[in-house]
């Protein structure tokens, strides 16, 4: 029971620090810590495949891509004068609305889930074998799996096109 609360505390604390940091490099590194804690939670949920994929794909590939772009742009700090003077909830217009919306979402979710009490429990059986997941992926989910490859191809071509430097004519 204790590891869950340890990982949950790390995940929430690191995520809070991600959106509290002014330097995107620290944000990315803290998000990797948060993903590591989530990976531990997946292990607790008998999902080792997802836990490993979380580390390899998310922390290893996607976050490195983020870090690469942060360092490529070399513009680490956001314009801080405004942010440090005014609290998010007191800023004008849409930002105050958005911050309030996020707070309302948190309260609502807490309320709705709190009413469930301890009723939600886990069934005895669980699917932990990677072989079973792979078999399901290539039989029941074969079509979505193939569509995923097209999505990746389109994203790759789109990213190259968007980030390409326009040649002077």
């Amino acid at each position, binding site marked *: 029971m204790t590891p869950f609360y340890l990982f949950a505390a790390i995940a929430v604390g690191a995520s809070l620090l991600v959106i509290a940091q002014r330097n995107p490099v620290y944000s990315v590194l803290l*998000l990797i810590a948060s993903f590591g804690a989530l990976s531990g939670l997946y292990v607790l949920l008998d*999902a080792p495949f997802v836990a490993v994929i979380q580390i390899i794909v998310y922390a290893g590939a996607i976050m490195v891509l983020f870090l690469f772009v942060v360092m490529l742009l070399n513009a680490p700090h956001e314009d801080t004068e405004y942010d440090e003077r005014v609290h998010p909830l007191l800023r004008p217009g849409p930002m105050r609305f958005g911050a309030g919306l996020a707070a309302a979402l948190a309260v609502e979710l807490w309320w709705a889930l709190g009413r469930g009490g301890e009723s939600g429990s886990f069934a005895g059986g669980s699917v932990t074998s990677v072989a079973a997941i792979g078999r399901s992926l290539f039989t029941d989910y074969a079509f979505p799996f193939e569509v995923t490859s097209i999505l990746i191809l389109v994203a790759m071509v789109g990213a190259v096109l968007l980030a390409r430097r326009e040649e002077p004519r």
Partner: protein
Amino acid sequence: MVPLSHYLLLSAMLFSIGTAGVFVRRNLITILLSIEIMLNAVNLTFVAFGRALGSADGQIIVFFVMTVAAAEAAVGLAIIISLFRHRESLNPESWVSLKW
């Protein structure tokens, strides 16, 4: 074992943190990171429910969500690089010309 509702509560907290980040932060990269936090909160819900129902479908959907997250990160970062070339800034307030 920890009850399912605790996993859902943790997921709800992470999702709210991500939502707050999208609305409050003034940095395009941090906004994309907040979207990643939200996607991970949803992933945790999928895995927790898949475990509760004793089926592999939750883990498979997480696989697809991660694929979409990778595609979204690649295209989003390409757009950010392209925007940064125009204005030398990562503040979303720099691109409000099309706002009402």
